């Protein structure tokens, strides 16, 4: 069926991934970094869906399920760490947590 050409989907996924990566590197607030990581994960999911549609296989969508599950766990652990970080350093600025340096 005619739909979205796979290249477009992949480009969207790529763009989303890059935006997420840039966000990860640029933002100092750890919550926003986590959000950027989510965007990256979802971008990969989109890429998988597009690939699955391309080849007509359900594997792509199964991967998305996997990614969703993994993202959820990761956010759970990550937010717990954010709480502890906040308690220790009294801030959400990730650059303040740099005592392990050489």
């Amino acid at each position, binding site marked *: 069926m005619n739909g979205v050409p796979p290249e477009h989907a992949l480009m969207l996924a790529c763009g989303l991934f890059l935006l997420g990566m840039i966000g990860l*590197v640029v933002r100092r607030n750890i919550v926003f970094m986590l959000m950027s990581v989510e965007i990256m994960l979802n971008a990969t999911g989109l890429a998988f869906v597009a690939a699955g549609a391309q080849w007509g296989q359900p594997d792509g969508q199964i991967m998305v399920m996997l990614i969703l599950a993994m993202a959820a766990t990761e956010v759970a652990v990550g937010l717990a760490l954010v709480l502890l970080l906040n308690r220790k350093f009294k801030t959400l600025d990730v650059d303040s947590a740099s005592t392990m340096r*050489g």
Partner: protein
Amino acid sequence: MLDLLWLVPTLPLASYLVLAVGGKRLSRATVSWLGAGSVGLSACLALALGAGFLASPPPDHRFVQVLWIWMNTGGFNPAIALQLDELSLLMVLVVTFVGFLIHLYSVEFMADDEACSRFFAYMNLFVCSMLILVLADNLLLLYLGWEGVGLCSYLLIGFWYKDPENGRAARKAFIVTRIGDTAFAIGLFLLFVHLGTLTIRDILELAPAHWAQGSGMAVAAAALLLGGAIGKSGQLPLQVWLPDAMAGPTPVSALIHAATMVTAGVYLIARLHVLFSLAPAVQNAVAVIGALTLLLAGFSALTQRNIKRVLAYSTISQIGYMFLALGVGAYSAAMFHFFTHAFFKALLFLGAGAVIMALHHEHDMFKFGGMRKEMPLVYRTFLIGSASLAAVPFVTAGFYSKDLIIWESWSAPGGNPWLWGAALVGAFITSIYTFRMVFVTFFGEPHGHAAHGPGIRMTLPLVVLAFFSIVAGFLELPHTMGNVTFFSDFLHTVLPAAEAENGRGNELLFQVIAAAVSLSGILIAYLLYYRRPAVPERLSEIPVIGTLGRLWFIGWGFDWLYDRLLVRPYDWLARVNRRDVVDAVYGAIAYITLGFYLLFSRTQTGKLRQYAAGIALGAIITIAVVIFL
């Protein structure tokens, strides 16, 4: 009988061992008996051996006693072997006899010194080494004796070790002679590699067979051996150590630096004369060195104030005469002068020692004065010795030996008028400085008072040596005066006589000239130092003469030159490089590594975002590389 040869060097060695290990525990008397007695026994033994040798000479006039094979490898098998022929017999007799007299003298001279046993131990070791040197049948064993006497010289010059100046003088002596020894060693290598042996007899046979006259190898070998001889005998340009060696006790100066060790070079050249005659250029050099040295040292002796330094320069000068004789081919004349010189120079040193001791270790002659009345016996024997040194005609041994050299420097095949002129001027200067010494020390007003005269143990050697300083010369009288040739006949199997070219000159005329020269020197000394003692002072105020005098005083500036040229640069180089420039290279490597470490550890910032950025960058690059390459 001759089988007892090995005992001659071993007796002093045994005494050394006993004294070195247990000397402190022995009484002074025992030490003296051991020290002097062992050398005395060696002397008696040597006399007996000599009598036996002369009565029934062994075949070929040469007796060899092999004790054991020292090394045996790769075709190189020197033995510890002693050889006795006329030349070594002569040396052994002089060394043991004069050595014994000096040991006897030392018993009293060193009586107050607490390190008496150490002194006699070293002296005995010296005698042992010197005997090995002259008795060695091969050059390696000779080298052992050669270095051994160098060691003992170092130990004895620096005997009073508390004064660093003595240590400096001792080190100077050892190092300068070692420079000569380096040349000697290279000469040994050359001889072995080309002739296949270091046995003296074989070298003397093989060298003429393998090397043409004047060939490069012969010249090289002879020149290198000459280098060794120069160092040990204190000739130009390695003479700088001898005057400073006077820092040692006087018996040491008498034994080592007058009668024996310094003549080792003369012995070496005489022993290997065949090699030198294969290299006429080198032999000529020997004569020239001898002539130059005798002049330079003579002038230096003229200006010294320390009586022992006068005698030291005098020794350098007289050995110059011996080298001169060797260089013109008059080998037995050289040995004859060695023979007489041993007696009168030892006598002079011992006499000087008596004066020094009596005046509480004062060395400056000009603080002596008038000792003639205070120490008559010393004066008389010293006078005899001085007369011999100055070659006073007819009655002294020195006259006959020095005169022979002066004649040979003109008439021998290697001789020429320049050498003769130098020898003559040297004789003139010798008389002047010798009698300067006599007049200043023994005449005039006494400046100090002699504490007490020397005892029998010091006077007996003086008397004996004085006797020989007169009589020893009668063994070899020139053609014009009786033509006695005991000495040269004795040595002729080892040292061929120099062929005199008749018609070269009138021997009698030359002898008269020589005699006149020596007597006029005495006259000048008399005038300057007895009659008008103020004149030398005023002379030295004249600018030219004053400067010249100062130049002579410092030994013609050789010390200064070597100091600037060699000693200071070496010192500086060693000090500057103390931390080792090569280590700096490795230190630099370590430093650079540290730099990298500091650089890379800056990437560990602890900042999460930078790590993430790093991961991202790395991933992009890797993927790009994979895709595009």
